[in-house]
């Protein structure tokens, strides 16, 4: 399964780092602005990802030959 976007965890860690650096007030003004913009973009991105995402539910099956197959779980199977 390819990773389409940076992992949520990584984006969140970056965001936490940005907030901390900005709060220390040691960054030059120009970099403060850049950090702020990057941070706000991350917040938007992450919030949007949460709002839009719909849970993918799959079922893992094994063929006679031992090969694993993932396919969406149909709700009528339940």
């Amino acid at each position, binding site marked *: 399964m390819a990773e389409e976007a940076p992992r949520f965890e990584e984006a969140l860690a970056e965001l936490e780092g940005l907030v901390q650096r900005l709060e220390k007030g040691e960054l030059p003004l120009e970099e*403060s602005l850049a950090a*702020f913009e990057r941070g706000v973009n991350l917040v938007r991105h992450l919030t949007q990802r949460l709002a839009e995402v719909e849970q993918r539910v799959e079922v893992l*099956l094994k063929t006679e030959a031992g090969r694993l197959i993932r396919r969406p779980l149909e709700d009528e199977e339940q």
Partner: protein
Amino acid sequence: MLRAGRAPHILSVSELAQLLRSALDAGVGTVWVAGEISNLKRPASGHLYFTLKDDRTQLGAVMFRSAAQVLVFQPADGMDVVVRARADLYPARGALQLYVEAMEPRGLGALTLAFEQLKARLGAEGLFADARKRPLPRWPRAVGIVTALHGAAIHDMRTVLARRWPAAAVVLRPVRVQGRGAAREIAAGIEDLNRLADVDVVIIGRGGGSLEDLWAFNEEVVARAIAASTVPVVSAVGHEVDFTIADFVADARAPTPTAAAALVVPDQAEVVGALARAEAGLRGALARRVGQARERLVTLDSRLGDPARRLRDLTLRVDDLGARADRALMRRLAWDRRELAALGARLERGGPPARLRGAREQLDAAMGRLRFAAAMRVRHARAALERTAAQLDALSPLACLERGYAIVRRGDAAGPVVSDAAALRAGETVALVFARSRARARVEDTEG
């Protein structure tokens, strides 16, 4: 001694053995017998050999592999058991043996005993050690679930996962959770989910049931699969009160499948709150940073000064000093004139023509001195003004004028300094004061 005529029927050993076996079969058959196990042996064949005894008697016993392998517990020396056995003769050694078909521990149920035995064995091996427990991932990409396709457990878990963290995919590996072969399926499910790169945590579980229903989760093959898993495994079997071997080996135990689902993913409501707080933090920090910069700018600006304003200030000071010098000089001259006039008047009142010549001469001399004194005073005053002006020049606006700036004054060169075109009207005359010269000009138009 054998006597002729009364020849008895003579049996071979084998025939006798056969008779005994038949007698045992008919007279004893299959029985349930209680006793204590001793001298237990388990050779590679898988058959169990032991002695069953009480305080007075002991009998050899064998339990063939086909029967022994379905035992859930491990027979051991000293264990009190009840066995279902057939008494038979083992012809090769002529020994009476019990052929054991089934065995139950006395006192405890077989499953309870098996549970305690496996728990003790795996515990001694260190499989339940806290040091082996892995932390659960905070942000799993996918949650693997080993449970029955149908049932409350998967339904409950899906509900909680969808509400708390829809960002994680759910991969269900359907298995039978009870009955023969269930344990192997569960173990295989754990192994299969371990082969998927995005599955960061695995839940194994099922709803509540009897000890027999939950039994698969007490089997060694499941315990081994959990221990071998590369991703953390959460065990959620039955209800709060049910503990299984799987619970002890797993990295985390949840009392129910619902609780397990809540354990493996974050709550999006909390995360959204944290994101909002992060954004507020960013805004606050930036506002403070900009405030800091602005404050610094204001301090620097005041230290640097506004060049235009400074020039205006200096110009005003020069004008003021110049005006004061002029006034002082004029006052002095006026005073001198008054003195002179008063002196003349006194002379005129002074008397007869005889004294007039001398008086006039005196007067002339006085006038000469007076003029000289007045001239000296003016010269001194001018020199003082020039010195002041030179000091001012060093201070600046004149230096500015040297560089090509001009001061605009209203009317003539003595008029007020104009610093804003708004103060002028079209057609008005102004004086342009350069460093060493002046010009008169007429205002054409104003703007701004």
